[in-house]
């Protein structure tokens, strides 16, 4: 049964992406990511994984084709429309993008502050989440004083603190050991079970193979949907 576009949280339709005058890195890319699904986005380094994610969190516009997020074209309407959509998206950046002069607590609290949440609620939620990712001792620490793995966990905590509808993670386990990677993946699955749609871009084939979530694989300039033989058919919605 084909997936209706209205059930897709992300929809790419014949998208082409190129930087400046260089040849396109993505051409005629079409896929749907269903609401509540969990996908991996894989491909060789430089294949365009980050570009796809950037189009999803509206930092890039496709040169051709259409990207729909939450069932609508985000670039139609005013800037406030884009801000509203972005508030529903949690992003784990490959380079973390933590603010060095802010404490761990303040970094993680940013999405809640932007959403106008009360300080007491912010402190409680952030403390609980940092406890969960094992960083409760570092509430007042500054990111440069922490290891790469710890910074990555802060970045993940910041991405999920506001319970986003869509979580986009760019190599979220790149700097952590296998045990912690499993734990973070477990966190993502927990979020997914709670209703968050998750897309993880990674080149870590070992990690991907341990899970039975469908993959979006970038091959050449296109994207192909691949399904694990263990995957539940109800999760698959090829376009």
């Amino acid at each position: 049964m084909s997936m209706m576009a209205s059930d897709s949280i992300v929809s790419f339709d014949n998208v082409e992406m190129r930087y400046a005058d260089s040849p396109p890195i993505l051409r005629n890319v079409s896929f749907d990511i269903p609401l509540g699904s969990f996908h991996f986005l894989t491909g060789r380094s430089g294949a365009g994984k980050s570009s796809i994610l950037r189009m999803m969190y509206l930092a890039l516009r496709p040169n051709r084709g259409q990207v729909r997020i939450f069932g609508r074209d985000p670039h139609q309407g005013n800037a406030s429309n884009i801000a509203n959509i972005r508030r529903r998206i949690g992003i784990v950046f490959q380079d973390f993008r933590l603010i060095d002069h802010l404490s761990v607590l303040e970094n993680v609290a940013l999405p809640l502050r932007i959403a106008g949440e009360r300080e007491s609620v912010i402190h409680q939620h952030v403390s609980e989440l940092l406890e969960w990712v094992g960083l409760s001792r570092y509430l007042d620490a500054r990111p440069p004083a922490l290891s790469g793995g710890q910074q990555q966990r802060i970045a993940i905590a910041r991405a999920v603190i506001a319970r986003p509808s869509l979580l986009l993670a760019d190599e979220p386990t790149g700097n952590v050991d296998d045990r912690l990677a499993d734990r973070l993946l477990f966190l993502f699955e927990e979020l997914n079970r709670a209703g968050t749609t998750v897309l993880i871009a990674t080149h870590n084939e070992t990690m991907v193979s341990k899970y039975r979530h469908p993959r979006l694989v970038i091959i050449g300039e296109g994207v192909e949907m691949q399904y694990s033989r263990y995957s539940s058919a109800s999760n698959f919605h090829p376009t």
Partner: protein
Amino acid sequence: MAGMARRSRREFAVSHGNTVAFLGWTVGVMVYLATLSVAGALFAQTVLDRWSLSLAGVVTVQVPEASEPASRGTLSRQDAVEDILDKTPGIQSHTVLEEERTRALLEPWLGESLIAELPLPVMIDVQLEHGARVDFTGLGERITSVAPGSVLDDHGLWLSRVAATASTLARGGWIVVFLVGLVAVISVIFAILSGLTVNRDIVELLKLMGARDTYIARRFQGHMVGTTLPVCGLGGLCAIGTVFAVTGFARENGGRSEALPVQLSPTALSLLDWAIVAAVPLAFAILTVVTARLAALYALRRMS
């Protein structure tokens, strides 16, 4: 507001700390200059007003060689002039100034030694009736016919010159305020644009998290409040302190002269005047904060 400023300061890197410190000092000095200019302009206006008020309806007659016989009749020149004044319609009263008071009035202008040597004319203060229209030309002619060399002064020329000077001073003061305000606005715009450039990564990150331009602009605005509010207050206080110091110095060095209709003291200004002076730092604080917000919003829209 303080909380907002504290958080804003933390949220943006302020790695351009020197720029911000420079902006703080710049705004502080500008507030100091603007407050001083406004105080000066108001002092000038007050002096003019008091002078005009004290000279309204008053003319002065100077009679040289007053004890000599008049050109006509048997009276002395002074008595003959007083007789004419008594008979002129519209004149309410006239008072002959004592010689000591005349000396005291002229001493600041001519000096003590010269005053002692000069034969002083008799000065007669003439008070006109309210709204009276007196023919000063005719009155002057009648006075010189009995006491040649006498002078009738209605202070019109003197007042117009003082008015022109005071008005120029006052206008100059307000022009200084305008220019200083303009420079403050330009400085704030420059600081905001530089701050946005330095913090571009953070601004982009906040936007990717769904922050609206107004949220980010509020952060810059809060940062500006934290930076400029204390220096505006400090600049204003220093300026008011300078006004007190200068007027105190002027009083001790001849400013208490009888020739001035108003003492050079802070009490010369009315409460309203002082409220205007005190409002200058506040106005600058508001100006910088509003400018910061508008400049940030404009720059953020261009960044989008």
